[in-house]
């Protein structure tokens, strides 16, 4: 940490706590408010305003030509009877669950694998992290080719005796394929998060356990896993929040097909609002997606609040 020239931390703390005149303290407070204010205003205009608007619109029929017409809960009622919406909702939940589980498991596995090897470790880390730097559009296009019936995946599998799989056009494999791409893209990022968590575990714990005769697995189960729990929980919530908003992967890799098997809510919002110009109905779907995102955000905030308390204690 750098320090201020001509002053040591010691001499500074000797002068604190300082008693500023009231008007001076007020002026400093005002600076603080001033620093935060632009961001708060921005979010009122671009987040809270739109969300309230969406909630209002969700009770209307609106095509951007005529003024919105109040229709009560009609949008929600008709959504609840719409098999396409229900399918998209289920797809979204399956996608969130699948991505989250595998992102977390693979991320943790990679972190453990990389944490123990000295040589070549940094290179492997940087290499894996490349998946996170590649633009998502590029990721989707590449994987669409790799999953092609004659593509690389089937080329690798065929010597193993696996017959040709039509990954993206078979409704049984399309969603797993998209989840696979998601994991490929995001697991290395969460590996870095897990690595930071692993580094925070004091070495002495392992040394003490080894002296007590604990084996490798025992040390993993009794030290690594429990101490990694907060990080793991955090990764789960963030990965879930991330998957809830997915759009481009299904849109570009499968186009939501086959037969809507990979259509997720964000795609349905786009189609309903911008292809069919049913803004009210699209807003109602937005509110449903919002409810899903809210669950994870609330969990995240709880975690955050708990961390703050721990830090304060």
């Amino acid at each position, binding site marked *: *940490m750098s320090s*201020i020239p001509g*002053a040591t931390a010691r001499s*500074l703390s000797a002068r604190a706590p300082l008693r500023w005149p009231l008007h001076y303290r007020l002026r*400093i407070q*005002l*600076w*603080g408010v*001033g*620093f*935060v204010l632009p*961001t*708060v205003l921005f*979010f009122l*205009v*671009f987040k*809270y*305003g*739109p*969300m309230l*608007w*969406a909630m209002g619109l969700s009770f209307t029929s609106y095509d951007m030509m005529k003024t919105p017409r109040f229709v009560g809960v009609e949008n929600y009622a008709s959504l609840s009877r719409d098999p396409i919406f229900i399918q998209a909702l289920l797809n979204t939940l399956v996608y969130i669950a699948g991505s989250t589980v595998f992102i977390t498991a693979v991320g943790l596995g990679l972190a*453990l*694998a990389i*944490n*123990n090897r000295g040589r*070549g470790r940094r290179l492997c880390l940087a290499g*894996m992290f*490349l*998946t996170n*730097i*590649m*633009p*998502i559009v*590029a*990721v989707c*296009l*590449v994987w669409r080719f*790799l999953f*092609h019936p004659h593509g690389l995946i089937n080329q690798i599998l065929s010597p193993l005796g696996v017959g040709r799989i039509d990954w993206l056009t078979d409704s049984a494999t399309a969603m797993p394929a998209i989840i696979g791409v998601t994991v490929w893209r*995001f697991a290395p990022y969460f590996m870095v*998060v897990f690595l*930071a968590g692993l580094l925070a575990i004091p070495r002495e714990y*392992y*040394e003490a356990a080894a002296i007590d005769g604990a084996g490798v697995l025992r040390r*993993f189960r009794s030290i*690594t896993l429990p101490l990694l729990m907060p990080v793991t929980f955090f990764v789960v919530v*963030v990965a879930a929040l991330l998957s809830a*908003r997915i*759009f*481009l992967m299904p849109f570009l890799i499968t186009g939501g097909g086959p037969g809507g098997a990979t259509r997720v809510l*964000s795609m349905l*919002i786009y189609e309903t*609002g*911008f292809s069919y110009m049913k803004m009210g109905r*699209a807003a109602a779907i*937005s509110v449903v*997606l919002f409810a899903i*995102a809210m669950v994870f955000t609330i969990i995240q*905030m709880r975690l955050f609040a708990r961390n703050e308390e721990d830090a304060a204690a």
Partner: protein
Amino acid sequence: MRQWLAGPSALLGLLALAALTAVFILPIIWMVTTSFQAGEKMFQLTTEWIPSVWHPENYPNAMGRAAFPLFFRNSVIVSAAVMVGNLVFCTLAGYGLAKYRFPGAKLLLLLILSTLMLPLEVTLVPTFLVIHKLGWVNSLQGIAGPLLIDAFGVFLMRQFILKIPTDYLEAARIDGAGELRILWKIVLPQCRPVLAVLALLAFRDSWDQFLWPLAVVSHDDYRTYPLGLVRFGEDYGNPPTEQMAIAVLATIPVFLLFLLLQRALRSGFGLSGLKG
């Protein structure tokens, strides 16, 4: 930490790690070699990892088939603006929330963090209507506007600045430094690693944007490269090898930024575990 699996099998472990890395890197290598491949070599029964004949002309050909120079220019403008916006406003807000005590500060923090549940995918329709009201449909500011500040960046900056001793700031105040000067001279120089993380994430996130520009732009002049690339792929006359050439080109800016910031990132990334 090296203990819990270290043993005689170190070499085996290294090999396993290399294999794992290969799984993650192979698709990227595939993208690069395919971009140099002859069009008819696609979808043969084996993949030619090193092209027997190199076709670097795929790149100029692809750039010439659609207005890609323009699309890339638009993307660079939007992403640079979003990066600067985030660096400025997330720093200000993060600093304000970390080091100033004023009534309602906690509430504002909560208000800002809560927007994490309102990503553009959720507020797509009404945000579009806001941009429509502002008259920003079909413009670069329309694409960049809603992305200029991200709550995650504010959170990141706040968490980092919390660790800077308040004594430093108080001492500077005694010496008569103004609040902006304190931010500029004392806080910011210590924030380098976290600013690097923020810059990379903000740039990459806006570089990746697809759904939002798709909703807000319908005119070719304002398309960003992801829209152009997808449109390019949908036209059947365009060889996949040339799509890959554009994909490689699109990867380069983020990659360069990553290399440029690498040293700062190394110390900064541990803190950023909130977002992918």
